[in-house]
């Protein structure tokens, strides 16, 4: 189970933030926020690493002493960040990837909702 999940808009403002109960929300937000630096670097134009698969899933962005920060970007420059516990061994790369794909599919459904204006905060009740 992930600790935090964030959807970040084109302009790098959060659209949706979910935190596991009882965690230091601000700390996790700092982690997600700094993760954007890595995402930005990874998707920047002109970055043509030989091993770059151009996959939407960006893999592990970085790790802190407690958490691992994973990133994903859509072609429309929406970013997803998932934070997991460093100790969580159940979540391997592939599981994270599937989680992101699922998230992306949910997000595209949200965008197709006529009541949602792209770029606004996503809220659900």
């Amino acid at each position, binding site marked *: 189970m992930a600790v935090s999940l964030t959807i970040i808009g*084109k302009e790098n403002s959060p659209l949706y933030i979910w935190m596991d109960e009882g965690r230091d929300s601000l700390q996790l937000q700092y982690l997600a926020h700094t993760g954007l630096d890595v995402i930005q670097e990874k998707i920047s134009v002109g970055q043509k690493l030989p091993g770059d698969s151009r*996959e939407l899933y960006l893999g592990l962005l970085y790790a802190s002493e407690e958490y691992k920060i994973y990133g994903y970007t*859509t*072609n*429309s*420059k929406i970013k997803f960040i998932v934070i997991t516990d460093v100790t969580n061994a159940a979540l391997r790369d592939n599981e994270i990837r599937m989680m992101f794909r699922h998230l992306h599919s949910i997000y*595209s459904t949200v*965008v*197709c909702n006529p009541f949602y204006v*792209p770029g606004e905060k996503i809220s659900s009740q």
Partner: protein
Amino acid sequence: MSAAEDVLFELLHMEIVKTFTDSKDKDDAASKLEYIGFTTGYRFVERATRETNRFKDELDIMKYICKVFWVSVFKKEIDNLRTNHQGVYVLNDNNFRFLTRISSGKQYLQYAPRFVTFTCGLIRGSLANLGINCVVTAEVSHLPACKFQVQVQRG
């Protein structure tokens, strides 16, 4: 899309065009149609690019529009894509779907623009969501061929 959905899509488009061009403020009709196309494209491309890898660059995106995107909307690829590598792309569709139902010849040529406005918006909306701000114009010189020109707005 099944055959029925194909026809439905075309008919729906025709009706939308008709509704707007018949309305009182005709001047607004084009921009409203364009806006409908824009929002449609914006939302649609979000879903359509779900399984697509990250695009390398602008040209990559334009190629996607010409191939995958066009096929998924119009059941065919763009016949010809040209660019000056300075932000101008010209997309030629020799048999544009929304114009195929109109009898060729000069008779209805003057009405052709209203049938391509939606698609201009569709392209613009899709590109906007993919991070390219542009102006899309269309030109119909003989039915049912259509030429879309994408002018990317830099800066």
